[in-house]
Structure formats: structure tokens, C-alpha cells
């Protein structure tokens, strides 16, 4: 009876301590979760202002015939696979826009044309109602496709545009850009002035992974450890524990290390999305996070 009350007393003392540990863990994880929850809606609810391109040829007004649009789509996809550096050239015919420069830059930025870090995208915009055109070059192609060259290309397309031969004009513009890229000197990626933007989707993914790992580390793991400790206390009353029972399980170390490493990586603002050109004709358009800073030229006809 005396032995039983001794066990109860040890267990009671230990469980009080463990309850304290659990309370502290829950408090920390709650604080962490609250801070993540504050950030998550902003990350998920972050609405993209302005246009986002979803195809190689974006023609909501259906200015181009289906055949012309398909042929241009195929050409742009093929160029993205065959040209040096695999640049991504896209076309937008949005109808009337208030400011074609702003539209082109916003659409480019929101879509993320070209590969992230290489910023090797080009956007061709035709505002047919206002007879305006623009070529927006990604940061990485500003040296290959200068403002002057863009301007010359648009000037060369003026006769076709004036005649209303939009497909022909676009083919000419695309061919001229492709020719410049084909014959360009290779550029060192380190010189690209990629402007890194905070990616809300990455933020959200980081948040979710962080939440799961934090709950695992600060709530689930302590509960498991407490249960194990409770079992040991019941199995070895009086505080003595044989060495083989005390030997640490290597899996716990591995688990703890993995968890802490993930948390550490998240705290440092880890991975960013990669990306590339199209994956294939069935899923031809897949932007890769490239950006532009207003390079290119505007024209009218």
C-alpha cells in the first residue's frame, strides 16, 4: 500500500511537471499558429490586380481566326523549345486598354513570363481599337532585344497592321524577335537584374508546412514523449531504469532533427518556385516566374 502511494506520488509529481511542459508547448504553438493564421489569409486571399495571361496567344476578342491562333500558338511553343535559352514569347490582343505600357508590364509581371532568374520572356501586345502596339522585354532579354530594336520591329509591322493583317503582322514580329534571340551572344545569368518579388503562394505553402511541423514538434511529439515517460514510470516504479531502457531511440533524434531543419529552413524563407517553358502541346503554356521592368518599345499604326 505504501509502495503504491509512493508510485502515485512520483507519478503525480511527474505528471504535474509534464502538464507544465505541455502547457508551455501549447502556448508556444498557439502563438506560432496565430502568427501564421494572421499571414495565411493575406497569402491565400492575395488577389492579382490586372491581367494574367493563360495561353501563348491571348485573344479574348477573337480577332485572329482559329487557324491563325493555333498556328501562332504552335510557333511560340516550338520557339520556346528550340531557341537558345528557351525564351517564352507570348501574344496578347486585349482590345482597348487605357495605357498599353502599363497593361503590358502588369500582364508580364502577373503572368511571370520567362524563367525566374533568367527573365527571358517577351510579350507582344496589340491594342487594335486604339491602333497601338507594344513589345515588352523581360530583364534578361533587354540586351538582346533593345528598345530601339523593339521599336524597329514594330515599325516594320506597321504596313500589315494598317492593312488589318494582324496574323501576318504578329508572325513578322515573332520571327524578328526569334531571329535576334537566335543570333544573340550568350549572356551570363549573373548579370540579369532579376527583381525578386515576394511570392504569396510560396508564403502560404511555407505557412502550412510550418504549421504542420510546429504542431508536430510542439504538440504531438511532447504528447508521445509524455506517454512513453508515463509507461516507463509504470514499468519501473521507484525511479530506477535499466540502461537498455534508458538508451535513446535513434529514430527520435532523426525525427527531431528533420523537424527542426524544416522549421529552420522555413524561418530563413526557404524555397521559391522554379519553372520553365511549356511542358508539351497538351499543356503548352506554363509561365515560370520571370519579370520585366518596362523594357521594350511602343508603336502605333
Amino acid at each position, binding site marked *: 500500500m505504501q509502495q503504491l502511494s509512493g508510485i502515485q506520488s512520483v507519478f503525480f509529481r511527474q505528471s504535474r*511537471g509534464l502538464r*507544465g*511542459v505541455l502547457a*508551455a*508547448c501549447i*502556448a*508556444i504553438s498557439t*502563438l*506560432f499558429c*496565430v*502568427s501564421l493564421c*494572421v499571414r495565411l489569409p493575406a497569402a491565400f486571399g492575395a488577389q492579382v490586380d490586372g491581367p494574367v495571361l493563360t495561353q501563348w496567344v491571348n485573344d479574348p476578342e477573337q480577332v485572329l481566326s482559329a487557324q491563325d491562333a493555333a498556328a501562332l500558338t504552335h510557333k511560340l511553343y516550338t520557339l520556346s523549345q528550340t531557341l537558345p535559352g528557351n525564351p517564352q514569347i507570348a501574344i496578347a490582343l486585349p482590345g482597348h486598354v487605357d495605357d498599353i*505600357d*502599363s497593361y503590358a*508590364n502588369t500582364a508580364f509581371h502577373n503572368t511571370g513570363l520567362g524563367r525566374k532568374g533568367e527573365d527571358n520572356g517577351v510579350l507582344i501586345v496589340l491594342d487594335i481599337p486604339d491602333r497601338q502596339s507594344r513589345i515588352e522585354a523581360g530583364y534578361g532579354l533587354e540586351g538582346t532585344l533593345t*528598345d*530601339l530594336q523593339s*521599336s524597329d520591329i514594330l*515599325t516594320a509591322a*506597321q504596313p500589315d497592321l494598317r492593312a488589318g493583317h494582324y496574323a501576318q503582322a504578329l508572325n513578322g514580329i515573332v520571327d524578328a524577335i526569334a531571329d535576334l534571340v537566335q543570333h544573340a551572344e550568350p549572356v551570363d545569368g549573373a548579370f540579369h*537584374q532579376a*527583381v*525578386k*518579388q*515576394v511570392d504569396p503562394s510560396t508564403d502560404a505553402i511555407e505557412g502550412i508546412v510550418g504549421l504542420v511541423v510546429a504542431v508536430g514538434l*510542439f504538440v504531438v511529439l511532447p504528447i508521445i514523449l509524455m506517454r512513453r515517460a508515463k509507461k516507463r514510470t509504470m514499468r519501473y516504479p521507484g525511479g530506477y531504469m535499466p540502461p537498455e531502457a534508458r538508451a535513446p531511440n535513434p529514430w527520435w533524434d532523426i525525427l527531431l532533427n528533420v523537424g527542426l531543419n524544416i*522549421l529552420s529552413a*522555413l*524561418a*530563413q*524563407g526557404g524555397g521559391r518556385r522554379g519553372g520553365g517553358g511549356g511542358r508539351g502541346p497538351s499543356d503548352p503554356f506554363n509561365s515560370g516566374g520571370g519579370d*520585366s*521592368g*518596362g*523594357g*521594350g*518599345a*511602343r*508603336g*502605333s*499604326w
Partner: protein
Amino acid sequence: MKKLLIPAIVIVGLIFIFGSSYNRFMTADQQVQEQMGQLQNEVQRQSDLIPNLVNTVKGYATHEHDTLTDYANARTGETALNKIDPRTVDDKTLQEKILEAQTRNAQEIKAINAVVEQSPQLQANQDFTRLMVQLEGSQNRITVARQRLQKAILAYNQTVAHFPGNLVAGILGYHTRVYYEASPAAQTPPVVDFSKH
């Protein structure tokens, strides 16, 4: 041992919150610095372009000839904007310098535009049209850089002012930044578009 466990966990938690917030402040701060640098570069690029334009249009200028010469002289010996390290000067001083450069560029472009309006024969000058294309590109880049700087400052201020960042921002030495506001005098006038003539 158990007595130390709870404070240890609390300390680890606090370190994590501090560390995580610090990293976010750093990232947001770097974005602002990067965008500020980009704006400096673009304004300087425009400043570098204008003397060439002035030289090209001088021959066509009648009334504005002296004004253009004065502007050109005023530029002599000035420090290039992109040589200023944003880390060595405070935001306000740097913004004032950028504004100063933008205001002067705007005044010069106005004077150039005045010459263009009076001299239609400039359209035939290949050098001039090519410089105007570059000037237009430069203006567009400045607009983009300014918008992105404002966004970067907004994101930074939100990181610093919102929970849980606001709990530790002051302790870590991060404070809200002032927005870059271009005065009406610094708003660059639109470049004359020859393709519409």
C-alpha cells in the same frame, strides 16, 4: 531539470519568433533597397540620355537654345545618382536626390518637347528619333520602378506594423518607411510620339 525545461522551451519559442520575424524584416528591407537602387539606376539612365538629346536638338532650337545650354552646364560635375549607396544615406535624403534629378530631367524634356513642336523637320533626324525611343523606354522604366518601390515599401511597412512583427520590430531596429512621392514638378512630361504624326 524539469524546472529548466519550461523556460528552455519558452526561450526556444521566443528565439524562433524573433528569428522568423527578423528574416521577414530583412527580406522586406532588401526588397525596398533593391527597388530604390533600381529607381536610382533608371533616373540616372534618363539623366545620361538627355545631354545627347540636347546636343541633337540644339541646332533646331531658336528660343530654347539658351535654356538648353544652361541645363547642360548645370549638370557638369554632379554626382551620378546611381553612385550613391542607399545604405549610407537616409531614405529622406536619397528620395530628395532622386526627386531633384527627376525634376531637372522633366524640365529639360519639356524644353526639348518645345523644340520638337516648333521643328517638324526633327522627325527626319534619325539620331533624334532613336534617342526619343530610348527616352520613352527610360520613362516607362522609371514609372515601373517607382510603382514597385511603392509596393515594396508598403510590403515592408505591413511586415513591420502587423502582428507578430510589430512586437519585435522596434527591438530589432526596424521602423516604418516613408513613401516615395514624386512632386508634380518631377512628373516627366510625355515624349512626343512621332509615329502618330
